[in-house]
């Protein structure tokens, strides 16, 4: 009998309860347990532990279950609301993007036509269109950034406040 026999025996003791072992392994194990006090003791201790732990039932109270179910339902509703909001924000963003692209194209063509009629240099018209389109965004950024500096913590606070307002 060597160390690997004991290791094999302990593995088989662990496996036979749940995974199951073959008839040959069972026969070998039985003969090993007869001869080896240490492995037989482990098999017995495992059985005792199993019996002891199973004799200690733990039950959840009905109030715990009820509270959990209520919290989960509420949270599910919150998540659904958030998804709907995000979907609407996404739709709005896409529509805004389409509108901007379309109006930019029309504005560009219109200004080119005006430049031709009024004999203005094309570069001046192009600069005017770009400034006209970018100026509002730049103005808003200038106004907002000093108020909400984009450091990590302040941005997190800012986003949290926006989230609270949305709720």
């Amino acid at each position, binding site marked *: 009998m060597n160390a690997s026999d004991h290791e094999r025996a302990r593995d088989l003791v662990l496996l036979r309860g749940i995974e199951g072992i073959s008839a040959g392994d069972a026969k070998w194990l039985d003969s090993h347990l007869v001869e080896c006090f240490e492995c037989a003791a482990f098999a017995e201790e495992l059985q005792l532990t199993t019996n*002891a*732990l199973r004799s200690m*039932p733990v*039950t*959840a109270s009905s109030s715990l279950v009820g509270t*959990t179910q209520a*919290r*989960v339902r509420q*949270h*599910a509703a919150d998540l659904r609301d958030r998804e709907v909001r995000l979907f609407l924000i996404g739709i709005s963003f896409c529509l805004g993007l389409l509108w901007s692209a379309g109006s930019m194209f029309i504005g560009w063509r219109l200004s080119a036509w005006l430049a031709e009629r009024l004999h203005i240099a094309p570069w001046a018209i192009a600069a005017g269109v770009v400034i006209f389109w970018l100026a509002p965004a730049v103005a808003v950024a200038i106004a907002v950034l000093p108020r909400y500096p984009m450091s990590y913590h302040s941005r997190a606070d800012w986003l949290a406040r926006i989230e609270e307002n949305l709720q």
Partner: protein
Amino acid sequence: MVATAFSSLVPMETEEARIAGALRRRDPDVLDALIAQYQHRLLRYLMHLTANRATAEDLFQETWMRVLEKGHLYDGRSRFVTWLLAIAHNVAIDHLRRRSPASLDEMQENEDGAPFEVPDVRPSPFEQAAAKQESAQLEAALQQLPAIFREVLTLRIHEQLKLEEIAKLIHIPVATVKTRLYRGVMALRPALKGAGHERL
């Protein structure tokens, strides 16, 4: 209960696939049924892990919230209970990290309170007293056992998970699961002998 309800709706799907579909939809009725169905098993696992009922109850609720949020990740190819216990394991680890970064055992050392409810079913007062004493001895021994051993013991003995399932659930090699089972069982030996538990 859940199985019966589901099987009447879609008989061709497996139970796990049906649960996965319901979790993706965040179906509140199915979640209610799952909470009711797995209440005792989940709480028992968390109580063995934390050795504290109040903490276990908090983590019980937290686990189901996590199930709701991560439900879309359950693909229905493994048993639901295994996935549920893996979520519970992660919730407990996160809880511990928030409390203290050292080890799972600090959870037990830093908290007090009744770790287990041991219903007394013995008929006579003498036997009741004896049973209480035995249970108390076993409880004390379990609480002294490091959480990593309590965890594998409960997963193996109560949940009857395979060694590979336990290894996957708590992210350790199968050999380590075997070692922890062996050491856990042997560590409980004095308490079991003292408590007079015998082979049935």
